[in-house]
């Protein structure tokens, strides 16, 4: 995410666009480099499932190659996939999209996010995002010519942006609110009440809501609130999602956007000049994932849930107080009691105990004092990592409670 200090790049290359040149690289590049130099690391710093794509889905991809489905599809994506998606969203969340006009298949949800920003932003338009948040949010807004407006969140408000905090930052330039719940990096989910409040605000100020719901299927003991399913929200929400997290399909690069026709038309315009169409093989696999994937999703969610409980319990036991994450596959413990800052903690932990976690500051200034621990890792690895973290904290003689 944006590390303002590193913005002033030395000797700016005039052949590179200023916007790109000044766009900071992911704030923790230094940490990445350090990580690649340490062997035998237990990495809790990964942002993808450790499951391989379920076999039936992989098999469908293989079959599509065998059958020679190697050409472009329509820009919007295969009609069959869009029909399956419309059906899925209708049945699961009760929100209906017309498969022909209101769904666009993208190359991962990342493309959808970029398209949405480019399709709605005029130069100087402001987009409200939670802090901390997924690293691509501010970057995509800036690349589209917009201005990211960070709204602080913390443990007290369950890492969900509060409407009063949003309202205080609304200006004439405010165009949209970009939210992503369940959230990376905090694991926070949005309750119905919180979602309703944001919806009311969006109506009051005539704002768009871009809802990144890539982690929608990874929730534990709660129901996911699909933002466009809220009354009156379909017409002002751009829903972004995909298959990467739900079906462990990160490498296939397949996602989708659902919104009213005027938005989808705008996004498709950019998509047809840039991506043309999402990978055909991945689209075929996604059809299979939607038709027969529920059993595997349930299996994975159950497994994540066990690991989640283990990680959160152990983090709290070793003195890193951890807010209960009810979604995604991240725990976001506070490391304030150690007296270190996030980067320092992550670097020392890596060097001394060979456990990698991501400093919270990678996701925004409000991530200071926290680290992101991903529990999409085998149980023995989680246990060993927590043993090492426990040793690290005790060894450092830190003033933990």
């Amino acid at each position: 995410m944006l590390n303002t200090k590193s913005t002033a790049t030395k000797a700016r290359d005039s052949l590179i666009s200023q916007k790109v040149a000044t766009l900071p690289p992911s704030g923790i590049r230094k940490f990445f480099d350090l990580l690649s130099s340490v062997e035998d690391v237990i990495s809790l710093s990964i942002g993808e499932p450790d499951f391989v794509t379920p076999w039936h889905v992989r098999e469908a991809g293989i079959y599509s190659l065998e059958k020679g489905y190697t050409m472009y599809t329509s820009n919007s994506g295969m009609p069959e996939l869009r029909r399956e998606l419309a059906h899925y969203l209708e049945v699961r969340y009760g929100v209906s999209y017309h498969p022909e006009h209101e769904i666009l298949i993208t190359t991962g949800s990342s493309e959808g996010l970029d398209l949405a920003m480019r399709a709605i932003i005029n130069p100087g338009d402001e987009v409200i995002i939670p802090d901390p948040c997924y690293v691509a949010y501010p970057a995509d807004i800036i690349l589209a010519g917009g201005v990211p407006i960070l709204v602080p969140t913390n443990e007290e408000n369950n890492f969900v942006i509060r409407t009063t905090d949003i309202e205080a930052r609304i200006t004439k330039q405010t165009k949209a609110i970009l939210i992503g719940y369940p959230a990376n990096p905090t694991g926070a989910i949005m309750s119905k009440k919180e979602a309703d409040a944001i919806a009311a605000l969006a109506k009051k100020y005539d704002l768009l809501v871009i809802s990144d719901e890539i982690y929608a299927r990874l929730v534990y003991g709660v129901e996911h609130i699909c933002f466009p399913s809220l009354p009156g929200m379909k017409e002002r929400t751009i829903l972004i999602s995909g298959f990467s997290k739900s079906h462990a399909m990160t490498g296939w690069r397949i996602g989708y956007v659902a919104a009213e026709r005027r938005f989808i038309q705008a996004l498709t315009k950019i998509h047809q000049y840039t991506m043309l169409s999402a990978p055909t093989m991945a689209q075929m696999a996604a059809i299979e994932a939607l038709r027969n994937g529920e059993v595997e999703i349930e299996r994975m969610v159950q497994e994540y849930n066990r690991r989640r409980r283990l990680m959160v319990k152990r983090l709290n036991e070793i003195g890193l107080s951890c807010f209960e994450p009810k979604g995604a596959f991240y725990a976001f413990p506070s490391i304030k009691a150690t007296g270190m800052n996030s980067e320092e903690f992550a670097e020392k932990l890596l060097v001394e105990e060979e456990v990698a976690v991501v400093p919270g500051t990678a996701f925004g200034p409000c991530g200071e004092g926290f680290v992101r621990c991903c529990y999409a890792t085998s149980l023995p690895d989680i246990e060993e990592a927590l043993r090492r973290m426990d040793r690290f904290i005790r060894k450092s003689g830190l003033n933990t409670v």
Partner: protein
Amino acid sequence: MKEIFEILEQNARATPEQISTMVDKPVKEVEKTIKQAEKDGTIVKYKTIINWPKLGKEDVWALIEVRVAPQRGVGFDAIAERIYQFPEVYSAYLVSGTYDLAILMRGKNMQEISSFVNEKLAPLEQVQSTVTHFLLKRYKENGETFHLPKETNRRLPVTL
């Protein structure tokens, strides 16, 4: 409750403490459930899957199709019991289809298996015929694959 056994089935060494965290139930309750299950035979045994060829120990395995004559009153059960009591028999199943009993057996060498078939199995009065298939390669057993590389090590060390 079922979840406790699902976890143990995957990892017999999971401790009651670990399981209790994973299923969000008190340790005492988990311990009690396991004790009870051990007593009433829900948990039959705790075993370990060993990749013996790695240690240079190459047992010979055979899948034997057995056609038998069922007996009045006990059907196939009595003859099945006669057969599965032999320690050489690793698994035994009654199956539908062109034969009746499917026997998986393990021997030190082919000789051991053929003498078992010739001297113990085939001469049984109810056994009408046997077909012995020697196993050439094991790909997957009890849900575990032997030849696939570990699939979990392909992720980049950091992704945001």
